[in-house]
């Protein structure tokens, strides 16, 4: 039976294949039993399902927890911008267009993730937020510069948080693609807010604040947002010293790659704004 060659060939590349399938003997037994009993046309599917069991990702729990974390961050952002847009006099005419665009996207992300999670058994409700972060940013909805500074921190957090979760969605097909497509939108938002802040030149936003992140500089005159940028200063990627390429130096090297946040790091940042 040439079918068994499949296993011999797999074994050459992955000597542990039988451990994955529980044991060589069982695998063979299972498979020869199968092939004796089922219609020939079903064989590829039977083989596929055996291998999926051996190599497929663990049930949907990973995907669900990733999307739940994402939803929490989107709840945070969506509530933040819609509250701000509703505050008379907070956002000047020059900023209304951009903030409205960003707000629209964050609200769409909430709905999108709710829909996705609804299909997996339900989604968590929105937490109650305290955007002053227990008094750290008291003027967040009364002073436009504070509002923009926290916006920047949220967007850059969003970029890093989605990035950190992407590998957990490997093999999840369309869910991964959707998460990546939200991730790059957050990066577009971040780039724009950073430019808005640079133009205003307030609260630590100097000429050196660029659409991309240099080192671990926040460009925000408080240490409270440092966790958002901690670790961004990396200049070596997969063992390759980026700063040495063309002698571009540490600044360009760190800007070239955005760094991920782990789930717990992202939760820790979001928690600052969640009412206990």
């Amino acid at each position: 039976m040439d079918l068994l060659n499949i296993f011999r060939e797999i074994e050459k590349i992955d000597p542990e294949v039988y451990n994955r399938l529980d044991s060589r003997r069982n695998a063979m037994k299972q498979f020869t039993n199968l092939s004796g009993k089922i219609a020939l046309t079903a064989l590829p599917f039977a083989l596929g399902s055996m291998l999926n069991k051996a190599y497929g990702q663990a049930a949907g729990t990973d995907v669900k927890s990733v999307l739940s974390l994402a939803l929490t961050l989107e709840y945070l952002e969506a509530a933040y911008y819609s509250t701000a847009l509703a505050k008379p006099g907070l956002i000047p005419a020059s900023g209304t267009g951009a903030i409205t665009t960003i707000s629209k996207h964050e609200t769409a992300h909430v709905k999108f993730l709710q829909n996705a999670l609804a299909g997996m058994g339900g989604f968590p409700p929105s937490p109650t937020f305290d955007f002053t972060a227990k008094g750290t940013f008291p003027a967040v909805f009364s002073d436009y510069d504070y509002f923009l500074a926290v916006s920047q921190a949220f967007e850059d957090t969003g970029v890093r948080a989605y990035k950190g979760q992407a590998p957990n969605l490997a093999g999840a097909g369309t869910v991964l693609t959707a998460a990546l497509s939200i991730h790059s939108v957050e990066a577009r938002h971040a780039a724009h807010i950073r430019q808005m802040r640079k133009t205003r030149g307030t609260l630590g936003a100097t000429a050196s604040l660029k659409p991309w992140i240099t080192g671990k500089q926040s460009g925000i005159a408080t240490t409270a947002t440092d966790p958002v940028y901690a670790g961004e200063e990396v200049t070596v990627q997969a063992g390759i010293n980026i700063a040495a390429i063309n002698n571009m130096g540490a600044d360009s090297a760190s800007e070239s790659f955005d760094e991920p946040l782990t789930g717990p790091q992202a939760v820790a940042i979001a928690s600052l704004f969640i009412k206990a």
Partner: protein
Amino acid sequence: MKIVKPNPPKEDQEVASRIHRRNFLRYLGAGSAFLTAATLASGCHKDDDDFNMGGEGVSLGSGDIAVLNYAYALEQLEAAFYTQVVNAQFSGMTATELAYFTDIRNHEIAHREFFKAALGANAIGSLEVNFSAVDFSKRDSVLGTAKAFEDLGVSAYNGAGQYLSNTDTGKVYLGLAGKIVSVEARHAAYIRDLISNGTFAADDVVDANGLDKVRTPAEVFTIAAAFIKTKINTSTLPR
């Protein structure tokens, strides 16, 4: 397909040995599309040339390597473009714009050289580019092309992530691609805002769900082909 051959020819054995064993499912997956119950049950001794998708030009390789070479090709294109932008400096380029274009050039060179080093012996060669359609002395021409390249890059990375294998190495590649794509998105936003402030995430790239555009490799190469002279064999790319 090839894995069911009792005695794979030498070239197949080389392919197998080049593939990290954890990637083998990817390898199997690529072939299994062609598996039928009939060929399985009868064995597969006959020549498989029917299934070797043809195509001339530079081969991108297969599996994760093909996806990385795909990204490497796009980064080569972008790096070459911005190198010329910085050298030519369109008329009226401000000091800040020059500084930012220099940054972007550095980022793209970083990405290009990163992929080259990461791919090692599997890397495709240097591509010959064709920017005859771009007038590097004109702001509109440069910004329009830059916008097209950046949005294309973002959509390409967003579309390619799903093709990386669900393996330890595939996840590392996915993480690295993620580190790059958000920087491309930052570039895209900046260039768009230069063309028309406030269009950083306009409705032509972000849909009603708030999702950025996604393109398949075939769609990307259809657009990129106008700028690449070197013929690339895209037949091994996932589709």
